[in-house]
């Protein structure tokens, strides 16, 4: 399992240690390491072991974005309202087994230094970084991860079981501890996308539980758990466990008493009463800069918890926020932030959204009504409806001229970008639209000029929208309604509650819906719009049913092009080779675009964040996604105050 080793026979090391942080090869143990100034007193007093004993034998060497930083200072930012734990994971909790590089191109070593993938991607063997310690000084080993996989996810009481991203063939893996630093994950079916999923925000769930601490609250390892459950007045052992050891998406996990691998440790628990959440540095953090200085550079993190975006915005403008894009970086605020740059002493950074479209209108191709199904299922009808839309006008009126006409296809920034795919079928051409609709057998019209379906009913489409999610959807839908009226197609706009929308969608009782087009950068990780792969694949709910269970009464057998996509996706799961996966995914997206699974309007323009001029090592541009949980993969521990 050495660096860059490709074994062609039965096993193949797909990616190994060599890629550590782009340019930096695995260096020999950096020397010249000096004690962190703010910890020196504790070390001198014997309250903390010296640096050499705290750092792992092979610390992760993080290449700074700009330059080697200096120690000290506080990162100030704002959290919003109830349990903004996703924000915390993104900023402070991105410590997965394997991580994304800064460009979102490759999966690179992190807590695992190397890995091996079996043929058919069923068995993954990870070699863990030696000598990594939890924030309480206890060693991090393969047992910690095996505990999560075998004792939590596989336990019948654990809510939801193994997370979906970790499943293949319907079940989670079995973890085998080969030795203290070698872990094997054995899957029932091929899971070629595991490494990518491990590098997303969700992957951090595997590395957030220290076995030594958490086993106290687990029935398999502590026979007296029932007593603790009763004493704490908990519902069951899971509730006790989550209260004392945390759970990935709850505020509870941010407690000083829970050992962590993160760079900073909370000083007080994060509760509903918290007004400011303060963190101090983890003295056992396992990353260093190229000169051997232990990270993080910043001693403290202080997040103000605010209920109002206006409050956070004013604080940011006043220079009281060091780096942030969450909550405050709205389209409307951009001009205000721009005007106050000098006063607040900050600069902008760019955030490239993981969206291929701001408006993705999906027509239900597996409609329950056979006539509607034959019409909406007709590619030429969908093409006509796409060409009938004047996208430029919508962009100017609704999106203040920002963004360009776009259909379904990867963003130009994506490695999977293919010229012409996103642009396909987006030219405004009313004559073509009319001709295509005529040829599709929709020539007859009623008195009001609307086209008639073959059975004599009016060709009328109801689109479900939730303006609460994105206020622009209502305006955009009205302009599409007007454009389609011009070619004789009626669009009825149903503003609907989210729960109801999901219910109607899942029951396959709808004509069309509008949602945001994801994903535009991390396509393989969220392929909902590209092939029937989840409940969000609204273009073909009955096909998705068929994928899940061909015998389900609502299932419909998909046509050849969908089956081709499913076969391609299957190849992706069986091959852990990123190059092969990229080729397969490209073809899947080409088919989705060609078949207009979604009629898109606009490629969303880049977002932004603000960062104080004195706050350094923040890249000028980064992706914005949960699959690349920004700014986590930038390595926030190398941020510093100049």
């Amino acid at each position: 399992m050495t660096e860059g080793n490709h074994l062609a026979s039965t096993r193949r090391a797909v990616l190994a240690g060599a890629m550590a942080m782009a340019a930096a090869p695995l260096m020999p143990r950096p020397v010249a390491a000096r004690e962190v100034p703010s910890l020196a007193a504790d070390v001198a007093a014997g309250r903390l072991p010296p640096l050499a004993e705290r750092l792992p034998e092979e610390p992760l060497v993080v290449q700074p974005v700009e330059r080697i930083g200096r120690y000290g200072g506080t990162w100030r930012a704002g959290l919003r309202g109830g349990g903004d734990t996703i924000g915390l994971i993104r900023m402070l909790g991105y410590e997965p087994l394997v991580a994304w590089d800064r460009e979102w191109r490759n999966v690179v070593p992190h807590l695992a230094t190397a890995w091996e993938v079996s043929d058919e991607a069923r068995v993954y063997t990870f070699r863990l970084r030696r000598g990594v310690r939890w924030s309480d000084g206890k060693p991090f080993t393969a047992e910690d991860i095996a505990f999560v996989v075998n004792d939590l996810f596989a336990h019948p009481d654990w809510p939801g079981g193994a997370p979906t991203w970790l499943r293949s063939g319907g079940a989670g893996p079995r973890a085998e501890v080969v030795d203290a630093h070698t872990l094997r994950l054995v899957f029932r079916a091929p899971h070629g996308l595991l490494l990518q999923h491990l590098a997303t925000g969700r992957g951090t769930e595997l590395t957030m539980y220290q076995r030594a601490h958490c086993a106290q609250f687990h029935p398999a390892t502590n026979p007296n758990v029932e007593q603790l459950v009763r004493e704490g007045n908990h519902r069951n052992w899971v509730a006790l466990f989550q209260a004392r050891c945390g759970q990935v998406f709850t505020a509870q996990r941010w407690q000083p008493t829970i050992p962590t691998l993160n760079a900073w440790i909370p000083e007080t628990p994060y509760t509903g009463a918290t007004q400011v959440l303060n963190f101090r540095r983890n003295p056992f953090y396992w990353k260093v800069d190229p000169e051997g200085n232990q990270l993080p550079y910043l001693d403290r993190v202080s997040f103000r918890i605010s209920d109002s975006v206006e409050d956070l915005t004013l604080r940011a403008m006043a220079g009281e926020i060091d780096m942030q894009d969450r909550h405050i970086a709205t389209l409307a605020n951009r001009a205000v932030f721009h005007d106050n740059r000098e006063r607040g002493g900050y600069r902008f950074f760019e955030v490239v959204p993981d969206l291929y479209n701001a408006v993705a209108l999906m027509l239900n191709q597996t409609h329950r009504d056979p006539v509607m199904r034959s019409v909406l299922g007709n590619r030429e009808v969908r093409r006509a409806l796409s060409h009938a839309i004047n996208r430029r006008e919508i962009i100017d009126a609704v999106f203040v001229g920002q963004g360009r006409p776009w259909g379904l296809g990867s963003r130009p920034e994506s490695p999977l970008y293919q010229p012409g795919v996103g642009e396909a079928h987006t030219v405004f051409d009313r004559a073509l639209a009319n001709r295509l609709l005529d040829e599709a057998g929709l020539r007859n019209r009623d008195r009001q000029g609307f086209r008639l379906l073959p059975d004599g009913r009016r060709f009328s489409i109801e689109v479900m929208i939730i303006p609460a999610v994105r206020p622009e959807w209502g305006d955009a839908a009205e302009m599409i309604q007007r454009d389609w009226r011009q070619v004789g197609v009626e669009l009825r706009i149903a503003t609907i509650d989210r729960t109801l929308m999901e219910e109607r969608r899942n029951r396959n009782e709808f004509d069309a819906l509008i949602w945001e087009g994801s994903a535009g950068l991390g396509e393989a990780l969220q392929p909902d719009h590209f092939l029937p792969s989840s409940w969000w694949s609204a273009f073909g709910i009955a096909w998705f049913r068929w994928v899940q269970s061909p015998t389900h009464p609502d299932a419909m057998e998909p046509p050849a092009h969908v089956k081709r996509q499913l076969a391609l996706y299957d190849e992706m799961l069986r091959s852990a080779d990123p190059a092969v996966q990229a080729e397969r995914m490209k073809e899947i997206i080409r088919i989705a675009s060609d078949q207009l699974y979604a009629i898109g309007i606009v490629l969303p323009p880049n977002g932004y964040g603000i960062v104080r001029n004195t706050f350094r090592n923040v890249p000028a541009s980064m992706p914005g996604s949960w699959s690349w949980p920004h700014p986590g993969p930038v390595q926030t521990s190398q941020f510093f105050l100049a």
Partner: protein
Amino acid sequence: MALFLLRRLGAMVATLVAISLIAFAVIELPPGDFATAYVAAMQANGVVMTEEEIAGLRAAYGLDGGLLERYAAWIWAILSRGDFGQSFEWRQPVSDLIWGRVGMSMVVELTALVVMWCVALPIGVYSAVRRYTVGDYAATLFGFLGLAVPNFLLALGLMYLSFRLTGSALSGLNDDRFIDAPWDAARIADFLAHLWAPVLVLATAGMAHLIRVLRANLLDELNKPYVVAARARGLPEGRLIWKYPVRVALNPLVSSIGLLLPTLISSSVVVGVVMSLPTAGPLLLRALMSQDTYLAGAFILLMGTLAILGTVISDLLLALVDPRVRHR
């Protein structure tokens, strides 16, 4: 009187039961539950959850039982051991979450109330006594402005002004560095330095109302014979006004004091959110939005209780003052 008291208390308990049931039902009324609200919030962050995970969530929170079943369990826990249940969102006992915030609300609102009365009283009297003078017009204009400008706008304007003038946003009730500090002199000084802004915002709106009511009441009194008689006997004008007609004019306001009790917690919701105050309002709003049933339910129950208590107090005061009420 004892019978009257008993009847009132009996009605109070019955109303409380009704309020708690309605509160619980109303929170459950919107489609979906905490699980769906949670899933929606997660999705806004790019985290997509599957049906299985959602079902697991529902089971973990005990959301799969019927409405009445859960209501009964909730009420029983409150009555039997004062347990208001767990907040879904924070996974903490509700009582750990609300009392600190309710206390903070009371401090802010009471201060606002005192300021409001202290300022509104003299202005109201002045504008009645000096009717149609420049001062009256100024007070009227100010009053209507205060009434017409929404609280949140005033708060936003104040925050922006503070940002332009001092370079710092005016929000919260303490500077960051004092928030986890003990309540020593320095923190109290800092607290007072922050308190004036929300108090100003909250007091302005109520003040306008108070001025108008007081002015109208007083105008009715000023022309009554007893005032003329007192004046004819040579009582100094100031003493006369404050001693007789003002006291009478205050009566309707005093009898509505009971209704102020629940507003001690609830009236600052919007201002609390905009100015990011650690008061009860923002927590209540969030609990309602995330359909955090027990947390929101506890708040509404508390407010209902205060409203009923207020009414009972008003009734008792009225009964003390006016014998006709208690004999009916």
